[in-house]
């Protein structure tokens, strides 16, 4: 913790060494966040770059309240969303009822890897991907998502529901045991 404080202090003072240490310590984790919100690696690298510029520029505004990692994550997520807003227009999806989903989730979890699941998330349509990432992985509420993406709470819920359905189908197709698939 003291080391983190030292690094933050150095970054506030604009020291390149401290900035390098901060980048070294957190870049992998934050790159993982960026990758989830983008389709390709290049876009994720751009977001990481821009996000770190924001972190270094605004680090003095971090007053030590709450988690520093959480603060940086939020910056990365916001940067990713800014990029998303520039590229895509959120299209409204009508309020839909909760979609029926297959009941089976007996997956061969041991065969799953983060890379596989990441591939599935990245394959989602952009609007669904954003909502799913924000809600399921980064813990935002529908109200917050609505405010961030400028959509209604209902749209957020429906997008999440569709995202879940798509993901569940893909997971079942790729990773369910054959007998389980038959039973479904």
């Amino acid at each position, binding site marked *: 913790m003291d080391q983190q404080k030292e690094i933050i202090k150095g970054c506030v003072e604009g020291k390149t060494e401290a900035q390098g240490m901060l980048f070294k310590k957190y870049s992998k984790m934050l*790159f993982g966040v960026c990758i989830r919100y983008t389709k390709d690696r290049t876009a994720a690298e751009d977001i990481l770059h821009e996000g770190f510029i924001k972190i270094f520029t605004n680090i003095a505004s971090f007053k030590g309240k709450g988690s520093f990692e959480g603060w940086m994550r939020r910056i990365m997520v916001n940067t990713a969303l800014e990029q998303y807003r520039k590229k895509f227009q959120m299209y409204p999806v009508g309020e839909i009822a909760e979609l029926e989903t297959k009941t089976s989730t007996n997956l061969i979890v041991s065969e799953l890897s983060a890379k596989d699941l990441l591939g599935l998330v990245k394959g989602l349509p952009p609007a669904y991907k954003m909502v799913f990432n924000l809600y399921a992985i980064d813990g935002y509420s529908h109200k917050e998502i609505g405010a961030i993406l400028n959509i209604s709470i209902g749209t957020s819920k429906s997008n999440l529901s569709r995202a879940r359905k798509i993901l569940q189908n893909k997971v079942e197709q790729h990773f369910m045991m054959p007998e389980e698939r038959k039973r479904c």
Partner: protein
Amino acid sequence: MLENQNKIDELFNDFLHDYEKDVPAFVWNNLKDELKAKRRMRVLFYIKAIAASVALFITFGLGYFVSDLGLNQNNKVKILEENKVFPSDKLTVSDNRFDIEKANSLANQAKINNKKKDLYKYTFELKKTNSKFQVASYDRIKIYDTNQLYRKYQFINKIFTVKSDENKKNKSLVTNNSRERKSNQLLTDTLLLEKENLHEGGFLLQNEEKKSSAWSFGTKFSPVVSVGNSASNEINETSGSDVKGSIRSDKPDMNFEEKALTSYTGGVNVNYHLSKRISIESGIFYAQKKQGADNLIGSQDNEFGGDNMTVYTPGGTQSIQQINNKSVLMSSLSMTYYALDANYVLNAEYVELPLIIRYKLIDQKVSLDVLSGVSTNFLVKNNTSIILNNQELWSGQNEDINSILYGATFGLGVNYNFYQNLTFNVEPTFKYSILPENSAFSQYPYSFAVFAGFSYRFK
């Protein structure tokens, strides 16, 4: 259904919330470059702000100077003996001394009056006087101008008013004759000034300036801060390092982060005053210029390198005995590159011969000069070193430094004449190297210094 949805969320959350991915090295390099550029932009912004402030200051200074010139040169009035108008019997002159006690007494009796009309009239006429005259005591001479008198109009007006209202005998000081009134006013002002400044009383003299020699000399000293070039910070390919600037898969990025180190300059100067406002300055100065680079990179040949390590510096490569404080940066079959916690410092020392023209914008007790000129710098010492944990691993000379440099200088001089011919000077100056200083460093052609020193003008 809800349970399944939660399981999907949990599944992805478990795997992806803390998902980490290796970041390519170039992301940090690009980021570092951009941060550096932003820092440079910030410094440039401050420089521009200072330059704008200086420009504003000069503009106002010029305005002041021009207005001062108009008043004092075109309408200068010498107060001669025939202009003396002696006051009424209440203000007596004896043995060339004014009766200060009586003046004090009058001042003390003064009350605020509401004769605004007279006040404005007085003010107007005093402004129009535009005269400059000398007030002398027995042992020193001071020059006052109408601006100083003007500031005292209110107080003086009280004296006139009180006298006219309360004592008709003193009406002689308030007269309709403008010339007489002007003279009375000047005399009264003189009286008040003498009361404040000369104590012993005084008398009006013919305007006569004291002459000083055209020569003055001084000494000054300043820390110097170099400022980065706003242009590209690409590494100079002509430097000694054969891999510098290369971003190849088998070699690390050799972009050194140049940094300016604070250095010092100082010396003696001689000025020749061509006129009251223009002077030429020269002298001899010792000027130091320090630059450096952190986090050097070293390499070791895995097959034939032995214990020696090749250290890459902005000034070329150096072979150094085994270094312990290192971490592996990149390794291949034949070569291993190390990140070293070592610094490179280039310390160049010059003898500087400047030729500066100074122009006095404001000529008061605290005067303001603008200065501009050129300087020639002769290299006298050149020392480069590689430092690790405050220990010098290697030192030597950089062969690529130019032995003669040329620079342009711009600045301001604030001078305070604190005692007779002695002046304290503060001079913020900005220098620009006309030619590149050396091939090792390319980024710091600008430097900023604030000289402080004293000068003495011969009598």
